[in-house]
């Protein structure tokens, strides 16, 4: 009786191979947006919720952050276009 119950119970619990994590959610999704994003979210939350706080300065920080992302990838893009024009035209 007990073993039968146990077996039945175990059957309901998803065991290792039953659950293909790739099908449910590939690792990158939670890794990037859940784990690696955390430090960034925390910093931003700290800016806006921590004290002392000054909305203008926090906004400045965000602007700087976004400008830098754009500049980095924009610059990279320009570089690759130059490489393309020079060598892969």
């Amino acid at each position, binding site marked *: 009786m007990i073993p039968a119950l146990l077996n039945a119970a175990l059957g309901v619990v998803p065991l290792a191979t039953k659950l293909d994590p790739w099908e449910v959610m*590939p*690792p*990158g*999704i939670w*890794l*990037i947006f859940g*784990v*690696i994003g*955390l*430090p*960034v979210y*925390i*910093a931003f939350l*700290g*800016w806006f919720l*921590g*004290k*002392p*706080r*000054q909305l*203008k*300065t*926090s906004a*400045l*920080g965000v602007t*700087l*952050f976004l400008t*830098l*992302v754009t500049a*980095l*990838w924009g610059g*990279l*893009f320009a*570089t*690759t*276009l130059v*490489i*393309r024009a*020079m*060598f*892969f035209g």
Partner: protein
Amino acid sequence: MATSPGEPEDIIRPILNTSKKYYIAFGVAAAIALLWSAVYGWQLEEGLIVTNLADWGSGGGSPWGLYIGAFIWWVGIAHGGIILSAAVRLFGMERYQPVARMAELLTLGALSMAGLYILVHMGRPDRLVLSVVPAYPWTVRTSPLAWDVTVITLYFVMTATYLGLTIRYDVYHLRDRLPNYLGPFYSLVTLGYSEIEEEVIERMVWWLALGIIVLAPLLLHGGVIPWLFSLVPSMPGWDGAVQGPQFLTIALTSAIAGVIILSYICRWAYDWEHIFSDAMFRGLTNWLGLFGLLFLWLQLQQVINGVYAEPIAGETAMVARITQPYYIFAIGTVIVILAYIFAQAVDQRQFSLARSVVASVLMLVATLTEKVLFVFEGLLYPHFSLYEAVPGHYFPSLVEFSSLAGTVALCTIFFLVILKLFPVVELHAVEDHHDDHEPAHDEEVSS
């Protein structure tokens, strides 16, 4: 503290004065960088065939080599910034405040070089943005390389934001002593500055530092970079969760070594003995020792696990690694350096700045060797052991070696330019000591 404090004049001296050394350094670095860009141009023209890379498998070569090794190495050096700002900003270790900004700048310089290596490594660098960005919503799910690019971008941007926020204070307070021809730049940097923001900025950079200290070591160098290797099913030499900590310790070792060298050069060039004190260098040397020890310890973990009871494929890879002369060289070097650091820790008289600098240079050579070896040795001993008969081998070509000189030169140029733009030592670092220590020294302050 035995050091005499610096003066604000000291830290803006590099901006105002240009010595002969500066011109020479700039000239040499520019020449090397130009030379290498010509070499890189040749590589773009002819393809990666100019490297000594080749296909693994029936091809008998290694498709990844020095470029990837150097990429990891530069990211490792970049961690100097976060170690130092963590020490100063999160743990209040004031002693290191003078080098904190330089270390943060090193982060930007070194990360740029790492990014450059991604480009240099590729067969079609011209597609980097056009191929990677549109595919990102899909590749982020599965590709460690996409993760890598994400984290490096975040790391770079967070560090740059951090710097952008902290130099506002310095530039604002030193503005009247800074040269006018850079006026527009300084106005941009201090855009909307108000004295009340100082406290807020202080708080914001604290949050940023907190974010970076989790992101950079744990998620970048102890995360996505080792995962590039340990997540693929093909190479037993790369297997294992130990890769994370192992990569991280090597990175931190390189980072401290980089900071020591960089601050030594600045001290020598600008007579900053009183700012970059011996005591500070001794402290950094001890940090170098600590990280170096961790580096060795994790190597030991891997070697023992590899040779004792690994499945056969892992054992083959490990035995091959520990009998590799370059591996023995790298580990031997670390051991010798540690011997020095231990000696100077026990007996202060053993310490000398020159020795610490030499130790740091050697340490960087050792970590670079280890990294390159890790990459291609792993590729020579696949699970699919039939290929072992195809004698795989790899030794970097001159083209590849020249990239090292090229990136070091570019990083130097980056610093030489920065030195002209804003103080590489925080104003806070020289201000804090100001009250309790009147400037007794008669340092010539340039007019």
